[in-house]
């Protein structure tokens, strides 16, 4: 299905600056905002133009597909995408590839992985697992009594982190050690209300999993109101600067840092390189997940909050 | 008369086309129908008169299924009936012009005239594809309006909410006149009509009666009532207080009955003719 507009416009654009498309899951999550800022900065540094588009909510396959199509029409050299649903957008990605556009997944893998040319991502299962291991270790011999502050029901990242955490804790879904779970949509307000309600029911807990740092803050506020500050092991994931500050302030024990800046820079570099000489990157590149805590525990590689503050993403 | 449990008192002479006994309808503190009786005989024009708020509209709403009374019985040709909706009354052949007109404001005249009784094209386009026969609906609508003398309507596709008050009322009357098959009830059908148009409606009512169909006419216009009615049902405070024949009574007597200044049985009151069949017009 060779059509004119695809090859024409990408050919035409090779004269001007390289156009890079970035498709994030949403515009709302600060994490993606940082991702796009980094990408923008990287593009500027390389003399490329970045067009950033996003879905409307986590899981907006339709929005991402439309974004990909519109970017291809626009004549971008390559698309960086944090795929909303690992399989939902494969068709659009394939069409983009067929039209000679370089496609790189950021942050989240596609399934199958070779639907994109390359992937620069955090392994969310690993990130969840790090949180789980740390929380388990901090409990020592005490039998865990856990509450789970999940994200959006059914979200990919949500499930991966959840699964990872339970692996790290050595638990399974349905284990009696899990005293409750609630979706928070990663929203502090929802997390706080959910935690309050769960605590009303049963306050004898000693560990909390949180999908991200806003959820952790909500959970911690509810715990504090119940007088449980410091008595419950709370972990989180993200590595935003506020999260690192929270760890430093002792609001929760640890967070697992991601590196969106790295992903963005590598992604932009790859597209620019492809635009120059057609070299395609390939494979999965884990951009890493780093446990940040001021109470290091033996057997777990961690950095302290000072390091975290220097490397946090927003 | 206050007791809704009174024994059925069907007239032995002729069975009324429509009869009601002991109807009651309360709205919180307000009692709109308070044990009302009603008799309509075949082939007559029955005028229903009464003060504002006497409960005339409520009564005919109960008779036409628009309102479900709390108590009381309704008999159609002697058979006890319960209308659960205006649709059921209409299917029984009772056509009503409501005081509120019951028109769909954003739709045009022809559509409103045929609302709920649309004509379909003949042949498979009609039966299978349910295609409306707009042309003939428009034509018939135009004819009907012309027959009522409404000549200022500039096109039959005009939206009803843009019509003048009288034009709107004419549409509602035209509709009832077109479709009544057993009886027609008209709640103040000429209130907004001009001199000529009112005349036409009165003629129309006569023509309907002459076809043997009874007509209930609610009106505040005494000359009109006396000109047209075979019997006059006087309503007051939610119930029937008298039925008189125009020939037996004067306008001022009827007005006195309406306001309660006079009661049936009082000296100077006209004779009550409840439950006596109207003279047949043939």
């Amino acid at each position, binding site marked *: 299905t060779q059509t004119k507009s695809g090859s024409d416009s990408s050919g035409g654009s090779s004269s001007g600056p390289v156009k890079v498309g970035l498709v994030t899951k949403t515009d709302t999550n600060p994490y993606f905002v940082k991702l796009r800022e980094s990408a923008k900065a990287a593009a500027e540094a390389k003399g490329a133009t970045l067009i950033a588009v996003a879905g409307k909510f986590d899981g907006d396959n339709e929005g991402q597909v439309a974004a990909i199509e519109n970017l291809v029409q626009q004549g971008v050299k390559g698309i960086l995408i944090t795929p909303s649903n690992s399989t939902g957008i494969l068709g659009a990605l394939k069409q983009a590839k067929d039209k000679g556009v370089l496609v790189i997944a950021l942050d989240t893998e596609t399934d199958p992985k070779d639907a994109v040319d390359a992937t620069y991502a955090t392994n969310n299962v690993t990130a969840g697992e790090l949180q789980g291991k740390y929380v388990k270790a901090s409990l020592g011999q005490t039998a865990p009594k856990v509450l789970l502050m999940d994200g*959006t029901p059914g979200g990919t990242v949500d499930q991966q982190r959840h699964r990872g955490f339970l692996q790290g804790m050595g638990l399974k879904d349905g284990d009696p050690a899990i005293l409750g779970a609630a979706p928070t949509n990663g929203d502090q307000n929802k997390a706080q209300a959910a935690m309050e309600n769960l605590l009303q029911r049963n306050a004898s807990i000693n560990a909390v999993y949180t999908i991200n740092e806003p959820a952790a803050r909500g959970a911690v506020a509810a715990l504090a109101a119940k007088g449980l500050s410091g008595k419950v092991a709370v972990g989180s994931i993200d590595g935003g600067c506020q999260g690192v500050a929270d760890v430093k302030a002792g609001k929760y024990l640890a967070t697992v840092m991601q590196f969106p800046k790295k992903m963005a820079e590598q992604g932009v570099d790859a597209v620019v390189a492809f635009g120059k000489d057609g070299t395609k990157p390939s494979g999965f590149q884990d951009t890493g997940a780093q446990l940040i805590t001021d109470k290091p525990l033996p057997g777990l590689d961690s950095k302290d909050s000072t390091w975290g503050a220097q490397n946090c993403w927003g | 008369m206050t007791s809704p449990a009174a024994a059925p008192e069907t007239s032995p002479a002729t069975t009324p086309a429509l009869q009601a006994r002991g109807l009651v309808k309360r709205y919180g503190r307000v009692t709109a129908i308070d044990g009302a009786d009603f008799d309509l005989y075949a082939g007559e024009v029955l005028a229903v008169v009464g003060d504002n708020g006497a409960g005339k509209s409520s009564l005919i709403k109960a008779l036409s299924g628009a309102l479900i009374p709390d108590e009381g019985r309704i008999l159609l040709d002697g058979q006890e009936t319960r209308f659960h909706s205006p649709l059921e009354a209409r299917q029984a052949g009772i056509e009503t012009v409501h005081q509120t007109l019951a028109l769909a404001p954003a739709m045009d005249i022809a559509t409103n005239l045929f609302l709920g009784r649309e004509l379909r094209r003949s042949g498979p386009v009609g039966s299978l594809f349910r295609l409306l026969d707009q042309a003939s609906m428009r034509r018939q609508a135009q004819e009907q309006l012309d027959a009522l003398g409404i000549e200022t309507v500039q096109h039959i596709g005009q939206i009803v909410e843009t019509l003048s008050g009288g034009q709107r009322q004419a549409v509602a009357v035209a509709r009832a006149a077109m479709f009544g098959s057993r009886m027609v009830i008209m709640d103040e059908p000429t209130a907004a009509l001009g001199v000529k148009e009112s005349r036409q409606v009165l003629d129309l009512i006569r023509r309907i009666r002459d076809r043997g169909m009874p007509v209930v006419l609610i009106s505040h216009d005494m000359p009109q009532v006396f000109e047209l009615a075979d019997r006059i049902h006087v309503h007051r405070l939610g119930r029937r207080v008298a039925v008189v024949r125009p020939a037996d009574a004067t306008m001022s007597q009827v007005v006195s009955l309406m306001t309660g200044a006079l009661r049936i049985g009082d000296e100077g009151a006209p004779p009550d003719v409840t439950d006596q069949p109207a003279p047949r017009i043939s």
Partner: protein
Amino acid sequence: MATRTEARAADTDSGGALGLRNRTTDAFLHNPALGPLGALIIAVIVFSATTSTFLTVDNLSLVVQQSLVVATLALGQTLIVLTGGIDLANAAIMVLGTMLFARLVTEGTVPVLALLVGFGVCALLGAVSGGLVTWLNLPPFIVTLGMLTVILAIGRLYSQGNSWPVTDSLLGVLGQGGYLFGQLRVTHGMTLAVVMFAIAWYALTKTAWGRHVYALGNDPEAARLTGIHVGRTRFSVYLIAGVIYAFAAWQALGRIPNADPNAFQTGNLDSITAVVIGGTSLFGGRGSVIGTVVGALIVAVLRSGLTQAGIDSLYQDVATGVLVIAAVAFDQLARRRSR
């Protein structure tokens, strides 16, 4: 008769300029979709002039494809809004439909049977909303909000966190299609949408049922008093809308061959937006399905055009917000002009 002719004469002798004005007035009053259409055309012209990539057959086809699912949802929504209702559950019903289709086929059901089951369930869910609205006389907003919550949860329970890729050719057929004039890609989904909108237009304007739908939204009490089958008509609208959502589900699988419980979370609002931009009143009884198509296209055109213009999504949001208001303002001004 003489009188009427006279009256008409008074109109016609008011002359050329006025005649034209009166004719445009009439057009605007009788075709509520004209205003939105004008806005759409202006948007297309502006984007064609300012970007080199917008006005290509390829892109135009894409824009239409992008609008299909929302347009189909909005078709069902239009019916319901015309009766004075609102449906917040439409996208949720559709998403459940996609999951039924996909999961059943994945688990070995014959595709045709899976389609039937999916259509049946969507229709049933529409009927439940309709039944509650019609016979318990509950506000459509609350009923469909409750349905939304329930159906989303059921969808997630049913999916158990999975999404279901679709490989079956029947389920994906609406995304397939051929080329017209060798260039313009026309998918079966587009054809289906055209057919559905045509049928809906026909049913709403050329059949008694359609008139009853309008009458119901116009003045429910008047509709009841005229002896329309009020309950039956209202119920039928929700039922039919349910079926239309099943078609939307099929369309969605044609576009994205993957059934995901989290997709189309803003589908309800998007569809209402298309309906309202298309000139249909949320108070019921006034509007048209043609307007709805135009409304859905306006949104897709804005999104595509702004991306072609290289505008960042945050600024795109600002622009979309402003332009959507502007599109409706344009319609209003056209109407006011003609009053």
